[in-house]
């Protein structure tokens, strides 16, 4: 490792290594310059997304100031625009989606790495990837047409038994009604149903990250746990889960980032409602992304700028979540493994 000093001082001059680097040929200089230029171009494109959204939302910021964050109405006629209800709705739908998706992602990842037969593992991984590749508009469509009636039924059931919890209440709806057809609409198009559709598309994203981290759990520690007489669950609890903790956190954050930015599945299912509310079972909610897609066509420049502002808020929000997720996951991959 360390350079040993030559003993004979007389030979030092003779031993000086000849410079073998002839310098870069012209073709290489062009190649490296070109590649660097492409890198800069990509960087510029990516950076300009943030810059443009920032500069375009300036009009709205000048007009509304910080009250943009505390105003919940989106009244085009009176120009009372605010992002509060959008923010609350976005977080609510994402929270529902994560609450449903993460337990299933965790168990799916555990099933693939710990329970499934070795031969089936590749197929199962491919299936999870396939689930991630299904377009979100398809999830929205199936959620709207197929799942919604069942989910409204479940929502009524939850309301009936857990309605005393504030967020599960649906004011004005009677869960024990005999006339279900007239009551059903009070449970449809809710944050809960949108959250289920988003959960379907977020689940494979979370599961893929978790599975990868779980499968990297050190074999030595697994075997040690087994050799000590541990059951399969014992191995999971004492080796796989502690080792994969950052994968679980990172996968959840990554899923959260996807859930926050999801547009079309939510826009298909919900009915816009601009109250600041956390009642997830009640008809109507709104998220930033779905508001943009529903309203961009009918807006004046000021309102368009306000939409841009909302988009910027979403952009920054997801960027922070994703960066944290990437940091957590990458930390788990480097050097967390213990060798025995």
């Amino acid at each position: 490792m360390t350079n040993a000093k030559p003993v004979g001082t007389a030979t030092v001059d003779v031993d000086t290594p000849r410079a073998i680097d002839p310098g870069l040929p012209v073709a290489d200089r062009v190649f490296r310059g070109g590649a660097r230029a492409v890198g800069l171009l990509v960087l510029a494109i990516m950076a300009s997304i943030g810059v443009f959204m920032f500069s375009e939302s300036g009009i709205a910021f000048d007009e509304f100031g910080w009250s943009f964050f505390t105003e919940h109405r989106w009244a085009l006629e009176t120009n009372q625009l605010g992002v509060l209800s959008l923010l609350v709705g976005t977080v609510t739908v994402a929270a529902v989606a994560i609450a449903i998706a993460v337990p299933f992602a965790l168990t799916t990842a555990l099933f693939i790495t710990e329970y499934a037969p070795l031969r089936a593992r590749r197929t199962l991984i491919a299936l999870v990837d396939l689930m991630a590749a299904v377009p979100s508009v398809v999830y929205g469509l199936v959620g709207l047409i197929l799942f919604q009636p069942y989910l409204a039924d479940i929502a009524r059931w939850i309301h009936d038994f857990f309605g005393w919890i504030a967020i599960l209440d649906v004011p004005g709806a009677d869960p024990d009604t005999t006339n279900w057809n007239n009551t059903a609409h009070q449970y449809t198009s809710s944050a809960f149903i949108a959250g289920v559709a988003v959960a379907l598309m977020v689940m494979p994203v979370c599961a893929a990250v978790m599975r990868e981290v779980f499968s990297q759990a050190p074999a030595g520690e697994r075997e040690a746990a087994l050799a000590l007489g541990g059951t399969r669950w014992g191995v999971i609890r004492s080796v796989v889960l502690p080792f994969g903790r950052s994968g679980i956190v990172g996968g959840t954050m990554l899923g959260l980032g996807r859930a926050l930015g999801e547009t079309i599945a939510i826009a298909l299912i919900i009915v816009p409602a601009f109250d600041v509310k956390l009642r997830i079972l009640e008809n109507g909610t709104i998220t930033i992304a779905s508001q943009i897609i529903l309203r961009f066509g009918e807006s004046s420049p000021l309102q368009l700028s306000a939409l841009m502002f909302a988009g910027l808020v979403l952009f920054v929000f997801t960027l922070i979540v994703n960066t944290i997720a990437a940091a957590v996951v990458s930390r788990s991959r480097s050097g967390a493994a213990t060798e025995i």
Partner: protein
Amino acid sequence: MTTVATKETGADTEPPEAQATEPDPDEPAVEEADAPRRIRSADADDRIAQVGSAAGSLGLVWILYHRVLPTEGLLGFVLCWWIAFLLLYALVTVQRHGRVVLVDRIAAAVVRSAAVVVAAALVTVIAYTFWRGGEALVHANFYTEDLVFDDSTDLSQGGIRHAIVGTLEMMGLSIAFTLPLGVACAVFLSEVRGRLSRIVRTIVEAMTALPSIAAGLFILVALILALGVEQSGLAASLALSVMMLPIITRAADVGLRLVPGGLREASLALGASQWRTVWHVVLPTARPALATALIIGVARGVGETSPVVLTAGYTNFLNANPLSGWQTSLPPFIYNNARLPEEEMVVRAFGAASVLLTIVLILFVISRIIATHRGGRRS
């Protein structure tokens, strides 16, 4: 290697040293004694407990659910059955085994059933889409006509030709933009390197999870509103490209990094310049990985709705020119028709979703085939 034979039959009768005397590697008999014990297989006791609990809980819940309690609905029945099964299974287990086995078995049951639920959800989504769309898919006019009809309830009129053409043109343009840029940027990240590449890589990784609506908004603001470019297929392809570029770049970067360093060094040692090394050695070696990267990006892009809705407008007629005029693709078609009150329009939306799913499935299968053949010949 073959010093300790794990023989289950004579558990404690003889010390392990007795078996380990004279390990002869050439003797085939040792291999049989050395066969590893299967530690993960379920024995008869476990199977009987599982099946018995399932059957018992089914009967119990059926009587309670349908006969005694005023409950109904298949979903509730299955849920109650599952809970009763877990309770019964736990009860059976705890009578014969300790707490440790109990927890192990219940955890296994919970994990397995959750995996079944996920698989059922995937199958339901895909099968239901094709089942509902089937009504429209059997009509040939569904593929050859625009969405024009005298009677919207007649499925033998009107189709999605305009959306299919729009999808193909937008994807073609997006590939033309993102493939060269993405691969060149990946080459920069993994071959040229330098301080700049670290910044670019960080930004690209952060942007892979960019909400697609942000990409659409960006093109809407930067091109359509600021520069006055009209809403068109080209604008939509640009929006999709912005979204796909980080995905393709990152996947290609990962692929290039997997090229063995020895190949690069061999090429350089033969006197090739870096440019020739990249062009003749690195890129051909990584070709399957690059194809996979492209397909991953295309599969994401083809299903994106919001960028296209924001930048391409919406039309019911064929517009084969992506450079001017409104154009639509399959996802906006689904989005716009799914909420219409007519049942037939919903069926058309499901038909379009089936076509979209088929495209995604084909891309997916191709990427799998390429991925499994990766490294077969060259590395």
